[in-house]
């Protein structure tokens, strides 16, 4: 019997650097920036940390391999530090390592650190990764990029639901304008300029049908969390303890394009991870029970489809919900309140932890101008890789009921 980790682990401190094109700093500085905030928030000494996990994705072009970059930057006292890499879920993987470390009883206080330094490659977009895709894969895999692969999802969705691409693009444009409106309120966000739906629709084409404003920012940044048991959290004097309700991961096994059962209009992994996460968290009606979300809006179409995989919108009805403002900051389930990947930015290894950071702030009423009214349950979601081949994580956190 799976017992899960619901309410077994509390977050006692979090930090997040300013995201953006941080030409001024390297990965070490970014880690220190988020760590300073995090350790102060936790109210513990650095050497109280017993084990740490580092999430980073494009290590060869930023911080280098292994967990040494975190151990060195934070001068950790020769403790266990593990590097995890699972595409865009790397940050959530780091948290999962730390949370499981505490939940197992092996440690009492653990650190999860996520960092990515992308803007040192000399060109826009994510680093070209064909040389790291494997010696066989490079011989046959198409000349694809992330926007191109996610763009394909729009053609699949349009076909499946018989929705004209121009209509679909309007809903996608609302996804982006909503995130820009939210990002404008966030001092740590990468992109802080509101845009109109017309601007989004007229932006230059990156990969049909995705225009520039359908794509998230490529950013440098870092976010981290310190976790412990709810009992220790209380002992440390924490009021309104925030606990992990669920952390689930689901990975493609190749069925999407090797088997014949995928419609090309949803994420098989997200669908599965959501079911498992709701079970773990004891949520039966997500549309009513989830108060806010930070999902993996690497591209507008990703967010749109994800609303259905997370069972917030019915299949085929995400465009309508989106256009109805259901996911706006003043809607029923606000999504990307901090600006999302779209505007807060997307330093891969940090993104999962940045999402948790926003949930953590909102649950404590510390989200400033963009504070929502009394949220109790928040959901985070990462989707790494491509729609046809990906890693998905779903996290749920909330106030401690124990």
């Amino acid at each position, binding site marked *: 019997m799976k017992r899960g980790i619901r309410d077994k682990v509390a977050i006692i401190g979090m930090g997040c650097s300013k995201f953006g094109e941080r030409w001024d700093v390297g990965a070490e500085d970014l880690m220190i920036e988020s760590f300073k905030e995090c350790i102060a928030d936790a109210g513990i000494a650095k050497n109280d940390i017993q084990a740490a996990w580092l999430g980073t994705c494009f290590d060869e072009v930023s911080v280098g391999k292994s967990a040494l970059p975190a151990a060195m930057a934070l001068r950790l006292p020769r403790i266990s530090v593990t590097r995890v890499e699972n595409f865009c879920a790397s940050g959530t993987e780091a948290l999962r390592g730390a949370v499981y470390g505490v939940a197992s009883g092996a440690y009492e206080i653990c650190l999860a650190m996520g960092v990515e330094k992308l803007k040192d490659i000399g060109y826009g977009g994510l680093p070209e990764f064909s040389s790291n895709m494997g*010696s066989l894969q490079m*011989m046959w895999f198409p000349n694809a990029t992330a926007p191109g692969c996610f763009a394909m999802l729009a*053609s699949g969705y349009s076909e499946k639901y018989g929705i004209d691409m121009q209509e679909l693009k309007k809903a996608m444009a609302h996804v982006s304008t909503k995130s820009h409106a939210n990002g404008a309120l966030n001092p740590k966000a990468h992109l802080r300029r509101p845009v109109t739906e017309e601007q989004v629709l007229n932006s230059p084409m990156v990969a049909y049908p995705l225009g520039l404003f359908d794509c998230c920012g490529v950013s440098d940044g870092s976010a981290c969390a310190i976790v412990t048991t709810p009992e220790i959290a209380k002992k440390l004097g924490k009021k309104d303890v925030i606990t992990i309700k669920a952390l689930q991961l689901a990975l493609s096994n190749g069925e999407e394009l090797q088997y014949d059962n995928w419609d090309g209009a949803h994420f098989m992994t997200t669908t599965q991870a959501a079911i498992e996460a709701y079970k773990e968290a004891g949520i039966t009606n997500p549309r009513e029970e989830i108060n806010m979300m930070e999902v993996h809006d690497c591209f507008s179409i990703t967010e749109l489809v994800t609303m259905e995989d997370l069972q917030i919108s019915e299949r085929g009805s995400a465009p309508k919900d989106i256009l109805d403002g259901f996911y706006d900051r003043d809607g029923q389930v606000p999504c990307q309140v901090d600006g999302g990947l779209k505007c807060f930015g997307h330093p891969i290894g940090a993104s999962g932890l940045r999402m948790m950071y926003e949930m953590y702030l909102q649950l404590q009423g510390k989200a400033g101008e963009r504070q929502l009214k009394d949220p109790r349950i928040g959901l985070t979601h990462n989707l790494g890789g491509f729609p046809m081949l990906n890693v998905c994580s779903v996290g749920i956190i909330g106030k401690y009921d124990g």
Partner: protein
Amino acid sequence: MVGITSYGGYIPRFRLNRMVVVQNMAWFFPVIMAVAQGEKSVANWDEDALSMAVAAANDCSIGKNRKAIDGFYLASTTMPFADRHNAEIAAAALNANEAGLTCADFTGTLKAGTTAAIAAIEAVQSGSKKNVLVAASDQRRTQMASMYEMFLGDGAAALLFGNEDVIAEFKGNFSSSYDFADHYKASGKDFDYTWEERWVRDEGYAKIIPETINGFLNKYSMKIEDFDKIIFPCYFKREHKNIAKKIGADPAKVQDNMHEVCGDTGTAHPLVMFVAALEEAKPGDKLLLASFGQGCDVLAFEVTDKINDFKGPQGIKGSLANRAELNNYPQYSKFRDMIPIDMGIRSESNSNTSLSTLWRNRKMILGLVGGKCKKCGTIQFPATPMCVNPDCNAMDEMEDYEFADKSGKIIMYTGDMLSATVNPPAVYGAVRFDGGGRIFADFTDCVLDQVKVGLPVKMSFRRKYKDGLRGISGYFWKAVPQVTE
């Protein structure tokens, strides 16, 4: 009876109107205007002599038992490898048997295609081989504003020789060999070096072809009137007709040199013209084929009744009809790598080709072979040891399944402006094969606006990348949306 048992042809889809070259380059060399009739065939940026040879060989072996091919001869002067047998790569792309197969590259002269055909015929005549496939192909880069830029086109043709179900019986051959260098290409050079056209025309084509044809007629005590079709290359249109007169042939019986529709396809051209003639031939027709290049090969064939039952492949006629205009001179120049364009840092990615990985996976990469689960019948690409069907997941039950000849339909697609490619946007997507199985693949020979979900595709062997640092070209299969213009 020894002879031709099948034929195939391939002319690339893109055609460049010669007036476009004139409009762009006549300022530099106005003489090109004199030969600006019609259009020339242009290989797509991802095609080369090897990929076009595979296309023609595929076309030639549709419906044939490829496992029965025991000889594969490739003829070209523009093969991608100087030392790594190009014929073996092409044979692997056809999923021909490896054991019991003899491969050979015929190169170094534009008559290599007919020389390969003679070698194939002799092998079958001697009884040492039963089915020998000959593919001839050329993709010659030409300097801007040169006469060669005007004359030359890209293409390939293939002939299968054997002694069962012969559609054109071999009736004899005669060759001449001279070190007549109308042009040459030194090892390591990019372009042909050509001598004065008048000399090439008058002392070359106009003497060597008639002399060799006459040599053939003397050898077999035949007369030119015995032949219903006389096929020989000569990119000088007027001289092509003069040669016919010189050998006493009825001009109506001379196969057109195809200047207006594709241009001279080099090593492939005698066979390209010959396949075009076969496509129109009737039982009993006698065909005389001659080539040109450091001498001349002459071969004679007589068409049999079997041609009536022969299911024509795409051939030359079909591929000429499958055309799209490429009337953008800078784009054409970039396809031939003539001009530098800022490709961006993203294009600098330089992964080494793992030769051991390629060897282990040669069927998958070169032959587009996936798997079919022996337990549940699920067809899958790529094939890995465990079946992908979640209700099966059988281990080590996979058998080979060939996708190269399967048609499919597009299920998702995009046109990607971020991908580094010489022909943006990079169009790619997911395809479902009609017989089952899916593939995530690059699309080619199409423009984004023509692509739709549900559009049929066929698979085509293409050059996937060219690694200049290490001098290796990598090949894989792309999906060609079946759009008609």
